[in-house]
């Protein structure tokens, strides 16, 4: 059994290595040109009408979902996957409560930006402001990021000293606690949720000509731009001193500590940065939807997020992005099988992990770690 998996793995891995070599061998201008073409293609996607590719569209079938809306969801999920990848893939911390940070972001913009939120109402009463007053959308962004980083540090501070498995369950509990607290207290709108969440053009209204309620294309472009920006930032981070520290901590915490890398500090940073990215995606999601309620942020969603990262190939941004797109897109595309899609989704998770435990597009370093582990198996046991 081990031999056949090994050969199949070398087969795919070999193909990938060959492709990678050819790609790296191309002149720089050709690589940048290909990259620019790819980015332009991404921006063009909402209009997708290339013959032979139109079957990709989700509105191609009867009562299918709005194609640009699905693209927006995909982009938000990619953003989540990239944020969670910082925590799981780079720093090697299993966070099962990531939805908590997503919720922090969504609720930040809802509580401070919506005229219907109890927080804004009490601020209006406190300072004698008009009924129309609310915190501007652009100011909600730093608020969301700060609140998420604070909650990341508050959660990580005590728990990051725990071992991996405990961390998993404590974070899972944290995600649930946030959801239940938000549902139970009054200042968050309670189980009814909050409506009238603003977007870049202020609160939702038919007059918003760009970021309106119907047309999702501008929302998709906004999310895509954010994703590209974040990809660039995280890539810089990955190849920095911090990125190398994460890698060292992930591979061997004690050795890293001996070499002068203080693991706790860098784990906490990973948590805070991951939290901020989760909040950013939550903010985009809430702004586009215009309405949120606590049960949208359940633990199953957290698990879906982890699945995106691991199926795609944790540690590799292209991989996790692919994982996120697949997991967001496939259930939408195959809506006609909506009753069956989660069953199939579960089966696919099991199969992918059994056949390709390193993920669809693994990080090269991660794949090697996995292979090392495989060779460490004692003979005949």
């Amino acid at each position, binding site marked *: *059994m*081990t031999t056949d*998996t090994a050969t199949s793995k070398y087969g795919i891995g070999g193909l990938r290595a060959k492709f990678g070599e050819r790609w790296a061998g191309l002149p720089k201008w050709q690589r940048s040109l290909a990259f620019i073409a790819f980015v332009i293609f991404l921006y063009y996607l909402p209009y997708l009408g290339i013959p032979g590719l139109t079957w990709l569209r989700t509105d191609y079938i009867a009562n299918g979902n709005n194609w640009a809306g699905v693209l927006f969801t995909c982009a938000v999920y990619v953003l989540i996957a990239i944020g969670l990848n910082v925590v*799981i893939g780079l720093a090697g911390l*299993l966070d099962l409560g990531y939805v908590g940070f997503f919720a922090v972001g969504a609720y930040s913009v809802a509580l401070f930006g919506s005229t219907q939120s109890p927080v804004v109402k009490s601020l209006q009463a406190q300072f004698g402001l008009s009924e129309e007053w609310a915190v501007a959308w652009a100011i909600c962004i730093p608020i969301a990021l700060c609140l998420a980083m604070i909650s990341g540090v508050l959660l990580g501070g*005590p*728990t990051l*000293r*725990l*071992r*991996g*498995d*405990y961390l*998993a*369950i*404590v974070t*899972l*509990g*944290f995600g*649930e*606690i946030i959801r*239940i*607290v938000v*549902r*139970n207290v009054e200042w968050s709108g309670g189980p009814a949720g909050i409506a009238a969440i603003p977007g870049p053009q202020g609160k939702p209204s038919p007059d918003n000509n760009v970021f309106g309620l119907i047309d999702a294309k501008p929302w998709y472009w906004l999310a895509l731009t954010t994703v590209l920006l974040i990809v660039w930032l995280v890539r810089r981070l990955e190849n920095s001193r911090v990125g190398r520290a994460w890698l060292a901590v992930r591979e061997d915490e004690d050795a890293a500590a001996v070499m002068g890398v203080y693991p706790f500090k860098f784990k906490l940073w990973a948590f805070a940065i991951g939290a901020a990215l989760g909040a950013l995606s939550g903010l985009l999601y809430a702004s586009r939807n215009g309405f949120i309620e606590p049960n949208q942020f359940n*633990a*199953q969603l957290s*698990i879906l997020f*982890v*699945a995106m990262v*691991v*199926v795609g190939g*944790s540690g590799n941004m292209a991989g996790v992005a692919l994982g996120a797109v697949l997991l967001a897109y496939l259930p939408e595309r195959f809506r006609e099988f909506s*009753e*069956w899609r*989660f*069953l199939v*989704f*579960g*089966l*696919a*998770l*099991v199969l992918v*992990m*059994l056949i390709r*435990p390193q993920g669809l597009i693994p990080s090269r370093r991660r794949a090697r*770690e*996995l292979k090392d*582990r*495989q060779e*460490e*198996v*004692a003979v*005949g*046991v």
Partner: protein
Amino acid sequence: MNFDELFGHLGQHTVDGLSKGAIYALVALGYTLVYGVLKLINFAHSEVFMVGTFAVLGTWTALGATSNPSFGMMILFLLAGLVAGAVASGATAVGVELIAYRRLRRMNAPPLIFLITAIGLSLVLSEAFGLWQGRLIKGMPTIVEREILFTIGNTEVTNTQLLTIVSALVMMVLLDVFINRTRYGRGVRAVAQNPDTAALMGVNKDRVILLIFLLGGLLAGAAALLYNVRYGNTRFNVGFLLGLKAFTAAVLGGIGNLRGALLGGLLLGVVEVYAATLLTSSWEDVAAFTVLVVVLLFRPTGLLGESLGRARA
């Protein structure tokens, strides 16, 4: 904060919490057994429990159970339910190990991968039951009619509470004896201590691992019966929250420690009932997880420590 209610009927709420916690404890044992031996969170264990609840319900339906049966019929239904639940859950647990874990173990995959296959498999199981049995809550006949058996002070103890607590304790003692006194149990402890050395000493590692999954499944089946008796309904996603609580209970007591799972389960049940009394029932989950976080902060290995493998007896 409703302190009057809590302290006025402290005994009542404690007994209620213990009977709730007994179910957590039985499911927690499944998590703790697997974790103690494989250092692995068997995420699919919650669905093992869910399958058990449906097997018990199916058996009762097949036997034509109605509410308030005679005493003889009640015993028959309980025993038949126990057997059906244990067989179904045990088979599911063994199936989970064979399908989702065995191949990955051969590859020595990192724990995260096991977690994802387990998540996938639990999704498959719960969705399959959702498709097959419908997604609504399924009620069932009241096999054990609630009645007050005896009263201590102002604490009334009902037959269902007594049944739940006593059967959980009995199964706990049986399991403890099995692990600590029998030959198979010695094999389990040996593999938990050091799998490679145990294999060199002639312990069949794969068989031991199958055995712990089977044991965990059997206990989950028993828990499923008690759950059906206590709550009188089930649903395709009943496992998720209960599994989460049971895992919390296992961690609380010290994962890998059998007695810890019992203690953690009972404690968690009591904490939840107290919290529901003090505030409202919507806060009980928050209380459960808060207790977990606080305990882990001050005692990172749980209340009794992790000890399935370490020399103890």
